[in-house]
Every structure is written in structure tokens, then in C-alpha cells.
């Protein structure tokens, strides 16, 4: 585990509390709440997990357990444009690893890291359910299909 210590703004706390309420503060919705929370903050620092724990009445150890179990959740801040490369079976056999290498080379960061200017972060995931488009790259909510190493620069250019 590693995280940075942050202080949440009052309106951020309010927004998070609102998210919990929208799920009726039901402990069963923990994963959904964390999903939304990560949408707001870009990551799930300890402070956010503590608020979720309090609001849903789930021990903070459990919240942390869920956060560390699913690779989707992260306790590290992501870049403005989080890049996720699918390494599921279909994407992998169609060359996703070469695409990943190209991203690493271009951005000069390793998987799980963020560029010093905070623009991009790089992550891998397992199957987004769009195997027909393999290899798939996601940047934020956008999906790029049939990506080749040659196409990497083009994707990055869209966000510069």
C-alpha cells in the first residue's frame, strides 16, 4: 500500500457523502460507491475510504480490503488522462504487449506511474469486454480499438 496524505475539501466530502446517499448508504453497494468515488477523485486515498466506511457503516479494513483486491481501484493519483491497456487474452494475442511497450517508451513511465506533468498515467487491465476490437486501449472513458504500436503517438497527440 502506498498513498499520499491529502486533505479533502469540504465540497469534495459533501459530494462523496451524496454519492453514498444515492446508494441509500447500503453496505452492499460498497463497490459501486468506490467506483463513483474513484470517478470523482481519480483515486481512492485513505481519507476517502474512511468517509465511505463511515457512511456505509462498513469497517475501514473491509473497504481497504476491497480497494486492494480489485485492480481497477487505486490508491495512487492518476493522470488527467488515465491510459489503460487491455491485456486480456484476445488483446494479448493481437499484440497488446507491444502497444504497452510503445506507451511506456513514449511516456517514459512504467505501469502504475504518472507522468511528471500529471497529464498521463499508465495502467493495465484484464478484458473490457470488447474483444472484437482487440487490442483495446482506454483513455479515460474513451475506447480505442485495433491499436497498433504505430498508432500510439496519434492517440497521445489527441490529448496534448
Amino acid at each position, binding site marked *: *500500500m*502506498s*498513498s*499520499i*496524505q491529502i486533505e479533502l475539501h469540504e465540497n469534495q466530502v459533501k459530494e462523496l457523502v451524496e454519492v453514498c446517499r444515492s446508494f441509500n448508504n447500503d453496505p452492499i453497494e460498497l463497490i459501486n460507491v468506490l467506483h463513483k468515488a474513484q470517478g470523482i477523485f481519480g483515486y481512492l486515498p*485513505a*481519507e476517502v*475510504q*474512511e468517509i465511505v*466506511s463511515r457512511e456505509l457503516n*462498513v*469497517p*475501514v*479494513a*473491509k*473497504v*481497504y*480490503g476491497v480497494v*486492494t*483486491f480489485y485492480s481497477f481501484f487505486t490508491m495512487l493519483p492518476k493522470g488527467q488522462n488515465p491510459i489503460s491497456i487491455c491485456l486480456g487474452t484476445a488483446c494479448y494475442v493481437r499484440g497488446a504487449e507491444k502497444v504497452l511497450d510503445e506507451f511506456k517508451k513514449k511516456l517514459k513511465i512504467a505501469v502504475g506511474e504518472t507522468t511528471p506533468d500529471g497529464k498521463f498515467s499508465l495502467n493495465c487491465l484484464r478484458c473490457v469486454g470488447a474483444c472484437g476490437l482487440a487490442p483495446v486501449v482506454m483513455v479515460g472513458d474513451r475506447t480505442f480499438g485495433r491499436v497498433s504500436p504505430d498508432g500510439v503517438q496519434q492517440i497521445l497527440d489527441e490529448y496534448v
Partner: protein
Amino acid sequence: MDKINLTIDNKPVQVDSGTSILKAAEQVGIKIPTLCYLHLEDLNIENKPGGCRICVVEVQGRRNLAPSCATVCMEGMVVRTNTVRVMNARRTVMELILSDHPSDCLVCAKSGKCDLQKTAQDLGIREVHYKGEQSHYKEDRSPSIIRDMDKCILCRRCEMMCNEFQTVGALSGVNRGFDAVVAPAFEQDLVKSTCTFCGQCVAVCPTGALTEVDHTDNIIRALANPKKTVIVQTAPAVRAALGEEFGMEPGTLVTGKLVTALKQLGFDYVFDTDFAADLTIMEEGTELLTRLTSYLNGNKEVPLPILTSCCPAWVNFFEEYYPEMEDIPSTARSPQQMFGAIAKTYFANKIGVDRKELVVTSIMPCLAKKFECQREEFKTDGNPDVDFSLSTRELAALIKQSNIDFLSLPDSDFDAPMGESTGAAVIFGTTGGVIEAAVRTAYEVYTGKPLQKIDFEELRGMEGIRHATIDFNGLPINIGIAHGLGNARKLLDSIKAGTCNFHAIEIMACPGGCIGGGGQPLHHGQSSVIMARQRAIYQEDANKPIRKSHENPYITKLYEEFLGKPLSEKSHHLLHTHYFNRSKVKVVIPKSKS
């Protein structure tokens, strides 16, 4: 209920519908090995994650082996528990578990009592064929509990006790795959978590992953130091369990042998925490009657019900989760701390020893007591009222190390004055006992009449939450009892919601009360062991010539010579405490982890 017929290893079995194969096999004398499975039947505690796969069996017609703990019997099922395929699978699973487990059994605190070690022996493992990476986690040392997660086999028993039974939620499975481990939030140390140090995780851990902080060396050194006067107090639940460590039947009372052993170890005075339990009743009982009388006289602001405060894990629990209710529990210190406070003032004076040269030790069925005696409020100029607290298990180890043949020891009596106690004090060791002791005294003080019947059967038992109404000569007193912090939480929530009409509530953190404490000999999942200890406690009470705390002549003398009367200024100073809000403990996040 529907009956199901099946055969297990060619033996026909009839069971109720819903019975697991594991339980059905037990009925016909087949003991399938388990590791993660835990069932404390009389206490309704079960851990059944089906995770370790040691208990797999072959079910005819099924392709895969089935975990017998989590597979329900079906009509006509044909089960085999000892085929070559099953035995190979079981050994393979065990070898894989051992391949990521340190092999330092010879020097492990759990050696000889380790379920993993025993199961590996039973399975005839002589070699581990799998070599690979081993998990390495940092050791976590709290004042009470040591977590050595390198030895964890992820059975999740501790997690179940902490979350389901105690509702403390300090532990959870975190991370995944090879990195998976049971840990507090953010993998911080236990001391920074919501842990109450009840030690129930230690009580159920099948390996050496969770153990107590060992103070036996401190005691050995203190006993060897000629400048020190070393005194010891022993909690009531210890005498009902210590014998188990020496192979005696659960429920064997060893009070006399215990005293002899402590004298042979070299303690200058062998006293009894029961003395302080009688004192607790004087203070707590008076507090109850004071609050109650005030309430009956029309003061509706009086905080009721009064909650007992002898259990240190319970105190930690309400400080963490119910700090807004801190005026409800009795302010009386626990017997351990009352003993310490009196020993280092009244008794130290009597024998003319400076408190700094007096070492007060305690033998407790409890791990939270280790935490409790380190609390700042129980120190005078940095010198603690109780210097070291040993668990029942540690005392057994100390006796063995000192070459004392426990089984052949004659009986001895506790020393005076702080070794004298009543039957009321003895029953502090079981759920329902503290409140029964309080009722025995409060009844006679309130009504001015002697009790016709000393035994309050209606307050006894093993149900998680119990209640009874005691007639105080026309005044009905409603009593609540909870053991297990999850049960305590239910009562506290009902107080908060205003739906509770109790006048007094007794709470114990551990299943069965102190007899099932985190420092007791391991029960290995047999709740009958805890039941037997409870019977022993009531037997000891029945055997005592004096059975009401206020009739203890040494307690009367203590008030005459030193304290004045219950709730006097001196009593408040020495025997009462105040509580802290612990729920605001802020998360401190480590900078980074490699």
C-alpha cells in the same frame, strides 16, 4: 425436519437436511481433517469459508472433490473420505500450504499446540515437494498481540471472530493472490486500528501467526532480583483452565495447585484478583444503588442503565465506538487495576516497601489486560499499578520452564490479606457472574434483608444476550447480560434508541466471559471446553464458605483501615477511572512501501 440418508466410507448415516458432510461423518466416527473450519457449537460461532481444501472428499458422480465442511448432504450420496485420490489431494494441498510457511516449528510459540503442525503430522507429510517464493510481511507488535503474517494460512478465522462475532472490524483480508494477507486497514499496525485487544483472533488462530506478547522473562528477572518484592494476583477464570495445559480434563479446578506453583516460583505474596473483585462489587454495587435511588427519587437525568466496566476489551470497544455514551458505564476500575492500586498503596505501606520496589504481576485469562495495565491513567509518576500481566498460557510455560511438576503439587491457600475472597468474586470469571455478584450485594444493601437464595439461576447460561428481572422486595430490577462484543453492540444500540429498560447490564467481550478469554489454553474449536470451565467456576463458588462480597472480612477491614466507605474520595482516587474518546484516531499513512 427432513431426514437424509447417505453413506460415508460405506457406513450408512441418517442426518437432518442441511447437514454438512463433515458433520455427518462425525456422527459415524469419521474425523475428516480441517484447518479453516471452526465451529463453537454452544456459542453459535462458525467459520466456513471452504478455503483451505484440507477437508475434501470424493462424492460419487461428481467430477471434482468436494470440501466436506461446505457441502451439504444429499439423499443417496455416496461419500469416500480416504481414497487414494482424496489422500493425494489432501497431501498436495497441505504441501502447498507448507511451501509458503516458515519451517521454524521447533522455536515457534505455537509449537505443540499448532493445528497446522498437527494436521501435517496426521496426514503423514514427511517432505514438501514444492519450492517457491515465500511471503514476507513485517511483524506487528502491539501491547497485547503479535502478528507474524508469514505464518498466516489465510483460514480467515481471526477475520470472522473480529468482524462477525465481535463486530470490531479491525481485520480484513487485503490484497490478492500471493500478496493476500489478513491485516488492519491500510496495513497499519494493530495499535492504530480499531482493535480492542480482546485476543479472540489469537484464541482461534490455527498457527503461530497470532500470539500474545510474552512477559515471562520480565517475571523471571523480577523474581531473581533480591531488591524487589514481587506479588502476584490470579484471575478467577485461570483456576478453571490452567490444568488443561498440563493434560488435565477441561473444567478441573486447580486453585490449590496454582497457589503452590506460584509460591514455588518465588512470588513473595500470592494473592487473588478475587479479593479485588469483591472490592469492585462494593464500589460498582454502591454506584448502581446510588444511581438507582437517585432515579427513583425523581432525578431522570441519571444515566441508566449502568454498565459493568471490568472487561478491558469492552472498555476499549465503547471508547472506540460509543464515546458519546461514556457516562453510562460504571467508573469502577477493573479488578486487576483495583488490585494494583491497593497493592501499591495500602499493602505497600503495610509491609513498608516503596511502590517502585514492589512488582505487581497478574495472571489473566486475557490479552487486553496487557494493554490495560499500560494505560497512562493507571500509573503514578510513570510507575504502573500493575507491572506485568501474564496470560494463563504464559503461566503454564513459566511453570514448565521452572521444572515444577504441576500435577504432583499439593494444595495451598492464598496469602492474607489480599488473597481472601468470596464465591461472588469467583463467578466474575463467567458471563453473568459479575452481575450476579452485584445483585447478591445490592439486594441485601437495598432491602436490608438477607437473601433467601444466593444462586440466581436466571442470570446464568451461555445465550449471547440474556435478561432477567430480579425482585428487590417489590422493586423490579431489570438486568441485561451480553457476552461477545457483537452482542454488546446490540444492547448498546437499544440503549441509544431508547428501547431498553434495563437498570444494569453486564458486558464481557469474550465468548462465555473470561473463561473463554484470549489468554486461556486453546480450545481448538471445542466449545465444550468453555462450558466445562463455566461449571467449574460455579462449583468453586458453591464451595466457598462466604458467597457475598460485602461479607468478605478483609474487604470490611480495608474500608475501616484505609478507604473509609465505598465511593469515598480515596476510593474515587484509587478505584475509579474515566474514559477517553478513542474513535477520533486519525489514519497515519506510511509514506510508501517497496
